Structures are given as structure tokens and as C-alpha cells.
């Protein structure tokens, strides 16, 4: 037990500041703080996300997992992944949406209470870039998430980095 506590102390707090919302990079500091205030103002308490893998290669999931490591610490910002779409404010969907997942994705979307946000993740989920084209619609897939349910924000990348994912989630909140 002592070695465990010692390790926790020695590791310290690793959480890094929130990324700037826009792609342009550095923004003035107050902007970052305002973002957190925005989350609280818009959502009252916190944001809850239901992740739906509708056909990814699991690369996007690796980066979504990374969002909760101590560096990005998404949960520490009041953004939490939940087990049911009924508890969720946002669906975070990876693709390309397979035909075998199309119905399940529609049902999950129907079960998410309004007002809801949908973020499409990855080149496949957004239907963009070279990889998005490689995994475009065919006999087994519907292609991009927006071909199946309405999408608010797109986070391209193969896979998108945790910082890009955080920017996308924050952008959706501000739009919502």
C-alpha cells in the first residue's frame, strides 16, 4: 500500500491545459478558461457522452480511450462517458457505419434524449480524406455517420489525436 501511495505522490498531477478550440493553435489564455465555463453554462452540470463504434477498425477507440488518461483527463473537466444513450447528451460515433450496425446506431440515436449532439469521429466516420474514400459506401457499409444520423461536428483524422477529439467535443458544446 505504501509503495502504491508513494507512486501516486511521485507521479503528481500530469493533466495538461485544455487545447484551444480552433485549429489555428495558440489562443489567449482566458479563452481556455471560458471554455470550461461554457460547458457549465450550457449544460448546467456536466456533459455525458455515449460512444458508439458503428464499424471502426478500433484505431479511433484507442484515441478515445486516451482522452481519459491523466494527461487529457476529460472526466476531470466534467465530461464523462456513460453506459446508456438514455443518460447521454452527446453521441460520439466512429465509422464507417456498417450495414450490420445501421439499425443499432439509429436505435441508440432515438434513445438519446433531446437536445442531443452528435460528433462523427475519424476519416471513415466523416467520410473524408484518402482513408474515408477507401472505406466509402459499399455492399456492407453506409459510409459516413451523416449518411445514417444527423451530425453536428466532424473530427477527421486516422485516427484523430486526443487533442483533436477534445477540440471537436468542445466545438459541439459551443454550437449546442
Amino acid at each position, binding site marked *: 500500500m505504501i509503495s502504491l501511495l508513494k507512486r501516486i505522490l511521485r507521479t503528481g498531477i500530469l493533466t495538461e491545459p485544455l487545447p484551444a478550440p480552433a485549429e489555428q493553435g495558440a489562443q489567449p489564455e482566458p479563452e481556455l478558461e471560458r471554455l470550461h465555463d461554457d460547458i457549465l453554462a450550457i449544460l448546467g452540470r456536466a456533459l455525458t457522452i455515449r460512444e458508439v463504434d458503428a464499424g471502426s477498425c478500433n*484505431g479511433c477507440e*484507442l484515441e478515445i480511450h486516451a482522452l481519459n488518461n491523466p494527461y487529457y483527463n476529460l472526466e476531470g473537466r466534467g465530461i464523462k462517458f456513460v453506459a446508456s444513450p438514455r443518460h447521454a447528451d452527446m453521441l460520439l460515433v466512429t465509422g464507417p457505419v456498417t450495414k450490420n450496425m445501421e439499425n443499432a446506431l439509429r436505435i441508440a440515436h432515438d434513445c438519446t434524449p433531446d437536445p442531443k449532439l452528435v460528433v462523427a469521429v475519424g476519416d471513415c466516420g466523416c467520410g473524408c480524406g484518402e482513408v474515408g474514400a477507401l472505406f466509402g459506401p459499399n455492399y456492407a457499409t453506409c459510409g459516413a455517420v451523416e449518411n445514417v444520423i444527423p451530425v453536428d461536428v466532424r473530427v477527421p483524422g486516422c485516427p484523430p489525436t486526443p487533442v483533436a477529439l477534445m477540440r471537436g467535443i468542445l466545438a459541439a458544446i459551443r454550437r449546442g
Partner: protein
Amino acid sequence: MRFHAEPIDFTPQPGRGAPVWTGRAADGEDLQRFAISVHRHGGRLAALWGEDRRPQGAGFRLHCVFALDEGHPWLVLDLPAENPVYPDLAGIFPAANRMQRAARDMVGIGFDGGDQRPWLRHGAWPADWYPLRHDAGPAPTHENAPSDYDFVQVGGEGAHEIPVGPIHAGIIEPGHFRFSVIGERVLRLEQRLGYQHKGVERRFMGADLATGARLVGRISGDSTCAYAWAYASAAEAACGAEPPPRALALRALLLERERIANHLGDLGALGNDAALAFGLTQFMRLKEDWLRANAELFGHRYLMDRIVPGGVTHDLDAPALSRLVGQCERFGREVKALRRIYDEHAGLQDRFLTTGIIGADLARELSLSGMAARACGIVLDGRAYRQDYTPPPPWAALGVRPATDERGDVAARVAVRFDEIFESLRLLRELAVGLPAGPLRAELAPVPGGMGLGVVEGWRGEVIVGLNFDAAGRLARVHPHDPSWQAWPALEHAVLKDIVPDFPLINKSFNLSYSGADL
């Protein structure tokens, strides 16, 4: 050469990949006899797929890759264009069950008897339309209605079913698990997969080598290096080309980095599933450091598209190599300290020990490979020497020591992961110090009609890619095979003595790929 005096002549595959022999069965009976002989000698069924060869003026072809101590015999059986049917192999190798059903769904080649339920086809396309036939054309318009699936039912007083999925309660890939339980005791688990089926194999048809390399790196994102290497190795064998030594060493370096990244993540998640959040935080911190170093050294956190047919895309200079060695030393210390905490944590060990057991006999029967097989005491690692087997370069010169554990439970799969991290760190240091000089890439010229098979020991197990070119030198057929095909049925057995709440922990201890097996 011949195996076990069976009357099938095999020819060794050229190139620098894992040892593979190609042969042709005269008829279904020939194939069945060979399969029985492989089984009797303790061999495995490594992969099975179908191919439409009617454009070449032939019929259909069944490909079976077996695994023996010496390496992989790759046996093909030509089937007539009309009514292509072969004898059911699932009675010899239970692992054949899902692969045969997938080959029927994809190519329309049948097998006599056994389990005839669809596997990858859920109802999005008609039962008499086969996507991997050359004359399939665009998919017919068809209502995508969810189909019924004939799960095996368990009866009796108090027995009931718990259906789980396809969308699971975490950040995981989709699949359906049907538990039959009494109280919390699991009587039976049946999986229904295929939800991740994206028609990848069809996307390969007619593509060029470079496009195929982009696709193959996205069969299962967590194993992108293993797939890219297996594909490159298959392409090199089919083209009769050899990658330069520096490229082979860098491929090994990339593969071991992938193994460590995945093992770090799994060890954290396994701690978390046994309620030790400390473990998740610590290992995810290490994994993030590891991924950031990947991005620094190779320009991609998961190392996608770094291994290509003919060689690799990125080189490491001397300062980068010395940084890598320093990082390995730091990680060795950190993981050692965390292992001591895991080993001494009574609550954690209580959950790990005797949970989700698979015996060595069952593992052999199911053709299990890789980390899960080694955790049942089976000394099987494509990177390491064993009797009658010499690993391909660069492994032969590295003296890889396979990690094994006899217990077959979650604790064993945790222990094997720890041991493999230390061994991979050693391999990385050796590779970095002894990196041979020379070019990074050899030119490949596709040989019309050529075929090749690549086998790579990925972090999960044996990743196999079989490919052949058409008359124009484009990809006619590529079949990527994930070790999860064999390991998913093992998971069905592993939960049988346990309770439902242990399932997430047992499942995580295997951490199988859905996308890799759903294609």
C-alpha cells in the same frame, strides 16, 4: 516435401518471411485426410478462406493454412464452378466453424454438414448474392432488416438468457453476447459477431499494392504493424523480392513497439476491471508517453502505414536510436515497480487468480495462438526457435525468449503480458544497437498470377495475410486473418466456471479484435 507421409507434395515459398509451404489437394477427401493428420500431430488450423477463380477459366478455390511445428503448410483445393462444396472440417478443427460459414457468406462455396447458420451476413444483402464473386456487381437493393439468429438455447428450471450488445456499455467495438445463466452462474455463452463487417476483402479486389497496404493497416487498428508486415511479407513472396536487412530490423522494432503499447493499455484496463483505478491511471500514463514517443520517432502515434511492401518508410538516425534506448531503460524500471504493486495487491490477485481458465488441451483443440495460448503453457511464438523451426529474420539473430505461464487464467494472461513487455524492451534495445546499415526499401514488381502468404507474431497472436495477383498484376484476392478467429470461441469456454460479473475481466484479459475477425 511431404508432411507426415501424406501424399501431397509441398513447395517452400521463397522470400525472407516465416516458413510456408504451398500444396494442392487432389480432392476433398485428400484435404480431409491431411487435416486429420495435422490434428493428430498436434497442429492447428491457422486460416481458411475462399476465392473465385472463374475469371481465370477455373472454378472456385478453398485455401486452408495449417500450422505445424515446422511452419505453415498452405493447402489449396480447387472446386468446380457449379455446386462448389467441400467436406466440413469443423469436426476435425472446431476453429473451422466460423471460417467456413464466412467463406460461404462471402464467396458462396459450401461445406457438407455441420453448422450452416450465416456468420458475416446478417440480412443486409440477399442469401444468394456473394460479395466476393467477380461477377457479383453492385449489391442488389435489399431491405436491411435485422435477421433472426438461431442461438442455442439452454432450458431447465431457473435458466434464463442475458442478451448483451451489439452496442456494449463501454468504449468497445460492437458484438453480441448471449449468456445463458442460472442466477449469476454462466451456463453457456454464445457470441454473434459480424457487426464490424465493412466488406474489406471486396475493397482489396482490383486494388494496387499501395492501396492494399493502406487498407490492410486498418483491418484492426491496434495491430496495424502486424498486418502491414504480414501483407508486405505476402507481397514480397508473391513478387519474389526481398526487403533489405535494415528494413526487417526496423519492422521488428515497430512491431515490438506496438506490442508494448497494447500490453501497457491492457494491464491498466485489467487493473481497472478489478477495481484498481490506480493501475489504469499509471499504465495509461505510460502508454501515452510511449505513443508520444512513437509520434516523435515515426510521425504516427499508432505507427500506421510505416511498414510497406518492400520495406519501411521511416528511418531512425543515431540520436533517435539512443533516445529510444534511454526510453526502454526508463520503462523497464517503471513497469517493474508497477508489477510489484500488482503482484502484492491481494484484492487484485483475488480477482485474477483462477478466473477464466483455459487448459492447454482445450487451447490446442481450438487452434489458439499467441499470447492467450502461451498463458496456457503452450510454448508457441513465431519469433522464437522451437524444435524443427527456425524463426525468420531478424528474429533468428535475437534469440527471442517466449513468455509462458501454465495457469491459463486471467492472472496468467497478466503475467505473460508483463514478461513480454520486458522481453520486448530487451529486443528494442538490441535492435537499436545493432541496426544494420543499408537501404530502407526494395522495389517490388507484381508478378501476374503470383501468390504469397505472410505470417507475423502480433501482440495478440498469429496474424496471417494471403494474397494473389490477377493477370494484370493487381490484387485479385487478399485475405487478412486475425488470431481472434480462433480466440473468440476460447472465450466462450473461459467463462463457463465463472459468474457474469467476471465476464468483463475475462474478456479484457483476451482483448480480442472484433474488426479484425469481422472484416
